């Protein structure tokens, strides 16, 4: 987001800071340079001014007939006594203008900018420009600001809710910023306005699956079925239908579905790796269960963000289920723990570690390995 005009904004910010600091120093130091009049320094003279004022007030009130003469006289006596007392004090002058100690000016010039800058650097964020909403939305495309682009389209759709293309643009954008339910709804609106379209329907189904933590709900399944009826070769729909079968426990049917996909697709098809991983995680082709290695997760990261999430989640859940049924596989446990950590789910990683320790408590070597993993991962 650092573009040329912004950079100059950054400069401008520091220039403003410098100007502000200079103004503050000027305001604080200039009184030290100005000459102070000495004639009014006598303390009692201020009291005298007040008392004289009181006397003239009294005079006015008496003339206006607001207070009786007797009261006015008594009050005048009291004020006069105070005036006499003040005049006797007047002789002594208490304050003088002395030369300003040099250290004060020097300390001010050094301390003010130092404390201000130091304090600011502790809590400030000079690197962040201001982001007024309207300007942000206007510059959304230039800045690749996904949230603002979404907002822009939303505003447009508030005006024209029947713009099918608008909904079709908005839906994947929602998906990218993680608003999955909104994405599904936007697809639904786009479909309602433009009529059935296999790609849109599949994307809607996928959003539903993702919003549902990787589980293929009945609604999603119906959508995928509809796509298969309209376009039997639609690979993504078939992929999710197979996943649905696996989640229902029909692993053999699921494997058949995925294998059929592999058989029909060219060797460089983009979905190949995802399908292969799905097969390996679901099936008994590998002797020790799914090989959920760091490498595989790396591979997964090259896929699109949403596919990756779905893939990793389903694989990890599969591994978890298998280990819950048979907890004797120490390598499987270690893979699961690491995978949980890679996904950023520390709680579940700890949970897996505890379950592993419980299942393998009689295997001394495994216990040591788990202890090492616990230390290495900081759990």
């Amino acid at each position, binding site marked *: 987001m650092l573009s040329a005009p912004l950079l100059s904004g950054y400069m401008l910010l520091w220039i403003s800071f410098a100007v502000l600091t200079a103004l503050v120093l000027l305001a604080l130091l200039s009184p030290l340079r100005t000459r102070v009049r000495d004639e009014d320094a006598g303390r009692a003279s201020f009291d005298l001014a007040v008392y004289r004022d009181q006397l003239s007030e009294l005079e006015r009130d008496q003339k206006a007939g607001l207070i009786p003469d007797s009261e006015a006289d008594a009050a005048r006596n009291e004020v006069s006594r105070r005036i006499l007392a003040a005049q006797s004090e007047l002789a002594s002058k208490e*304050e003088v203008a002395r030369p300003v100690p040099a250290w004060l000016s020097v300390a001010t010039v050094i301390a003010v900018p130092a404390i201000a800058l130091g304090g600011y650097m502790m809590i400030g964020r*000079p690197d962040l420009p*201001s982001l007024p909403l309207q300007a942000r939305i206007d510059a959304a495309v230039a800045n690749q600001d996904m949230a*603002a682009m979404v907002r822009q389209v939303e505003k447009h759709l508030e005006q024209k809710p029947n713009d099918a293309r608008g909904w079709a643009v908005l839906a994947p954008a929602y998906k990218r910023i993680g608003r999955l339910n909104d994405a599904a709804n936007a697809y639904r609106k786009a479909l309602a306005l433009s009529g059935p379209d296999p790609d849109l329907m599949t994307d809607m189904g996928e959003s539903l699956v993702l919003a549902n933590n990787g589980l293929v709900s009945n609604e999603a399944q119906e959508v995928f079925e509809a796509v298969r009826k309209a376009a039997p070769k639609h690979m993504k729909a078939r992929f999710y239908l197979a996943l649905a079968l696996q989640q229902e426990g029909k692993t053999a049917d699921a494997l058949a579905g995925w294998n059929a996909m592999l058989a029909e697709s060219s060797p460089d098809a983009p979905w190949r790796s995802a399908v292969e991983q799905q097969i390996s995680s679901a099936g008994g082709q590998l002797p020790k269960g799914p090989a959920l290695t760091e490498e595989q997760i790396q591979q997964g990261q090259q896929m699109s963000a949403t596919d990756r999430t779905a893939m990793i989640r389903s694989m990890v859940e599969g591994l978890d289920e298998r280990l819950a049924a048979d907890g004797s596989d120490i390598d499987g446990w270690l893979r699961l723990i690491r995978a949980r950590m890679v996904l950023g789910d520390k709680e579940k990683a700890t949970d897996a570690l505890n379950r592993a320790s419980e299942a393998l408590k009689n295997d001394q070597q495994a216990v040591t390995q788990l202890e090492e993993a616990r230390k290495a991962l900081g759990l």
Partner: protein
Amino acid sequence: MTPEIGQFALVLAFVTAIYQFAVPMYGAWRGDSRLMAVAPPAALLQFGLIALSFGCLTWSYITSDFSVENVVRNSHSDKPLIYKISGVWGNHEGSMLLWVMVLALFGSAVAAFGRNLPPSLKARVISVQGSISIAFLSFILLTSNPFNRLDPAPIEGQGLNPILQDPALAIHPPLLYCGYVGLSIAFSFAIAALIEGKVDAAWARWVRPWTLAAWMFLTSGIILGSWWAYYELGWGGWWFWDPVENASFMPWLIATALLHSAIVVEKRNALKVWTILLAILAFSLSLVGTFLVRSGVLTSVHAFAVDPARGVYVLGILCVFIGGALTLYAWRAPTIKTGGLFAPISREGALVVNNLLLTAACAAVFIGTLYPLVLESITGAKISVGPPYFNLTFGPLILPLLLLVPVGPMMSWKRADMWAAIQRLWAAAVVALVVAVAAMAWQWRGPWLAPLGAALGAWLIAASVQEMLNRAKFASVPFAVALARLKGLPGAAWGMMIAHAGVGVMVIGIVGITSWKQEIVTVLKPGETQEIGGRTVTFIGENPVTGPNYTADRTRFRISSGGVEVSEIWSEKRIFKPSNQPTTEVGIEPFLDGDLYVVAGDRAADNGRTVRFYFHPLVWMIWLGAALMFLGGCCSIFDRRYRVGAPKKAKIPVTQPAE
């Protein structure tokens, strides 16, 4: 960039506050007029910097800059502009920023208008103001920074609590803060006087108008909050003895006492030490109020800052300032020369009684507010102290005070004849008696005390009027002359009369709403009617309504009196975006004898709706009374006259001077 400039300006303001505190204090100690002359520009500069900072935050709110965390938490781009702006102080961080801005504003007012103050007093006052600024600016910067940034920035804010989206609440906090913080001036003057060991004539002259200004702001702030609670919360009450209300009421009571004792300092040069103590107490209670509300120890609509770190910090500030001030008081107060003497029965004596009763009443409120908190922190037991406690403690203290209010102004300074003063009030007493009888006739079934309460209010009003008529001498000089005299009476006299009458008006209003309130809860279907307060209310029906950031069901009612349609009112149940928080908008139709108050409840079967009807007799008199008190303050504060209290000649001539 804007938020960062605000942030930097705030840090600079903090540095300036340190300078403002240290250099003038050192200069005053050295007796160096050049160093003391630094104080005014520093105070003005500090205000400028905080205002710049506040402006930057406001700009972030207006432009919906969601890279600022505070804006995200408390604003929403759909909000109307006025609530975007009021959102700035509708939250903890922003309201603290407003707090220090008002503090700096008062400090710079001393700097700008304090030409007639002795330089060392002025320097010390501004320096003490600076020390308060240091405490609260560091509090903001360290625990409640309003300029925290978010990266990446969300695209939309979370909105402001809908019940805070209200015109009265948009100005309630600024007014209340002007009141709270205005008392800091009296505090700073008190501390400066203690350090100097001397109370100047100018000291007395300054403390009273500043206290009066703070008191006026407090009065209007409290009553606006109360008015808001009345029409927005929909509970049909106006004062709940809620700790947050008490937090603002306690400084008000002490400020009222201070206001009266400052008159004695001003006119008679007496009660100086006591007045200094009151000045310290008034601001201390403001700090306690700030602590109670800001620390989150109370759970109410105001407690939006539930964060122990903040609470501890404010508690620390509290201990340093209150503890420090009282220690200084204990050490230095004996060095201050006492002034004029007076007999127990005198205007001064009456003002002392006023002070004692107000302070005792404040103590009662203080205990009722803090006891549950202390008990909870020690034993963990949760109790709530409600109106019964306050009626039993606050009531007996405030009633004699109200009864005596008219007597004080009738007494002369220095020594007075109590019986003569009371005799002069015979006309007011007759009016009060008539009102009591009339009230009994009007509401003959009502509580027995109510007519007496109404009589008390009438007594206050009638005595105030009578006082003015007496002063203008309507009884002894021709009417035209008396009228001219009435016009010529000093503003302070008018202020006192209007404010005291305002208290009377308010008392009648309070008696009305507490004794004669009617309440009916029922289920109505469209077309059905309900009788209340001598009027007939018909439920017309309901329709959906869309506001800028809410949707609502509006239920409409027709009011008719004696078969004639008078007006139509509505009540709404609103659902606010984006939080889906529901609020209720009350329908109120004011009549001369009271408010008809309608609150729509939940839907019932067959298109029906639960509706709560209230009739609040004379409630407008509460608001009018407060407005009169404020108006009285205005008259008094613009009175530039300044008189020494004129002692009346005693029957036996006294030759000895009073001092």
